[in-house]
């Protein structure tokens, strides 16, 4: 944790009607770090992710992003075109349900190439080569490049979504339960894949998960949320091996140890 933070949020607050979704949330993310946000359903994890990524405006507080040139941007004060450009180049978003992100009527290669084309790539051969390269990196057979995603299994869809997101070499990726809804063996392979993919080009990741095991395997740091507040934060091993907050203790003790 040296140097300036890549993304930093201060005093985030948001209520849905009378329900406090976020309260006094501070988050810092350093370059090439993976931060896990854990907590039970309804604790505000996904809301925090949508606020951090600029898709939802908080009632209070601000999120600041430092671009590659060192300029600081207030994510929620950015003009819509700039935020959109950021989302399809420097940032990525991996949904729990890959169907939300993928174009199901477009071939795997087209899905991977879309972000490149949105950035202005206009050479078919280059786009196809990049798509093939990324399909290989996420362990999808090159022969499937022209197949429609609807012929893919759940695990393949998730890997395709990851390839589509990482093809532009983002610096920051938001992941919302990337292994949710997959069976355990597929989950394990996917976790290995995510870990190797984000460690090589040094991508910073904010990962939302309810699965402590996923957080332990992937994350450098962990933030525990309860009722819209971050109740404990620290290095992953530290928090999970020596939880201080009663809620964290409950969360850790409720996990079956293998």
């Amino acid at each position: 944790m040296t140097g300036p933070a890549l993304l930093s949020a201060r005093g985030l607050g948001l209520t849905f009607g009378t329900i406090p979704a976020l309260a006094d949330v501070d988050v810092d993310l350093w370059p090439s770090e993976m931060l896990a946000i854990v907590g039970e359903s309804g604790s505000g994890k996904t809301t925090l992710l949508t606020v951090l990524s600029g898709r939802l405006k908080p009632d209070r507080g601000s999120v600041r992003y430092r671009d590659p040139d060192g300029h600081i941007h207030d994510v929620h004060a950015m003009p819509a075109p700039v935020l959109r450009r950021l989302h399809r180049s420097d940032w990525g978003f991996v949904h729990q349900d890959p169907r939300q992100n993928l174009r199901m009527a477009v071939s795997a290669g087209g899905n991977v190439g879309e972000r490149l084309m949105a950035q202005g790539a206009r050479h078919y051969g280059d786009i196809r080569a990049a798509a093939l390269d990324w399909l290989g990196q996420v362990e999808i057979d090159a022969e499937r490049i022209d197949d429609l995603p609807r012929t893919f299994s759940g695990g393949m869809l998730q890997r395709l979504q990851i390839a589509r997101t990482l093809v532009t070499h983002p610096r920051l990726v938001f992941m919302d339960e990337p292994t949710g809804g997959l069976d355990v063996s597929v989950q394990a392979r996917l976790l290995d894949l995510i870990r190797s993919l984000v460690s090589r080009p040094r991508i910073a990741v904010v990962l939302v998960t309810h699965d402590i095991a996923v957080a332990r395997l992937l994350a450098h740091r962990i933030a525990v949320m309860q009722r819209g507040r971050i109740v404990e934060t620290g290095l992953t091993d530290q928090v999970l091996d020596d939880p201080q907050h009663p809620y964290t203790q409950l969360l850790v003790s409720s996990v079956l140890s293998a």
Partner: protein
Amino acid sequence: MKGYNFAYLDEQTKRMIRRSLLKAVAIPGHQVPFGSREIPLPYGWGTGGIQVTASILGAGDVLKVIDQGADDTTNAVSIRRFFARTAGIATTTATADATVIQTRHRIPETPLREDQIIVYQVPQPEPLFRLESSRVETKRMHGLADYGSMHVKLYEDIARFGQISISYDYPVMVNDRYLMSPSPIPAFDNPKMDMMPALQLFGAGREKRIYAIPPWTRVTSLDFQDHPFRTINAPYPCGLCGATDSYLDEVVTDDTGGRLYVCSDTDYCSRRRGAAE
């Protein structure tokens, strides 16, 4: 014609349409909404084109109407007669003699001049509608010039068929800013839109949109660097006039496989044959 205003539409409606036209010319390729009126013609037969034509016609104008390049099909004849009766203006089939040309599916082969206006009938003005069904979202995409998904469509064509398979209504970028549907003209006609001396107006009656390309505006067809845009035409000369540079229709002549390829632009074809005799 008694009981009708000049060129059928009332003056207030024409003013409203002209205001939309002025805005459309000011923002080349941008779709401007307008209050499309009931026209004594079914939707899809040119209600948008008729309203635009009615709004720009003056007493001294000479009107030509073509349908698939031909002056003698039902749609073309009916619209030409409609304006001859309701506006009392002169009509012609000669491209060079016309001041206003209303068209469906073609641009005449004879190059247009600065003193001419071409009015296109447009069924679907939104080039992104097959990719994105929400109009709110397509408006946002136009606003942000976020056209990457259109190239995904072209990518898919090349991946599946080895080439871009769009043969008509081939999407174009106007003035390097707005993605635009050129209406269902063949891709063969797309290059004619680029730097055209004549004013190009587009009317979509059912969809209530008007857009325009001012004279001498850059119009480029979307493509990839390694799969450049190219026009497709039947590899034959015209069976009547022998032209090799015009867009051809395929006509089935018998039930034993006989085919005749003829110019779809009937005025161009007959003029060439007249000159040859």
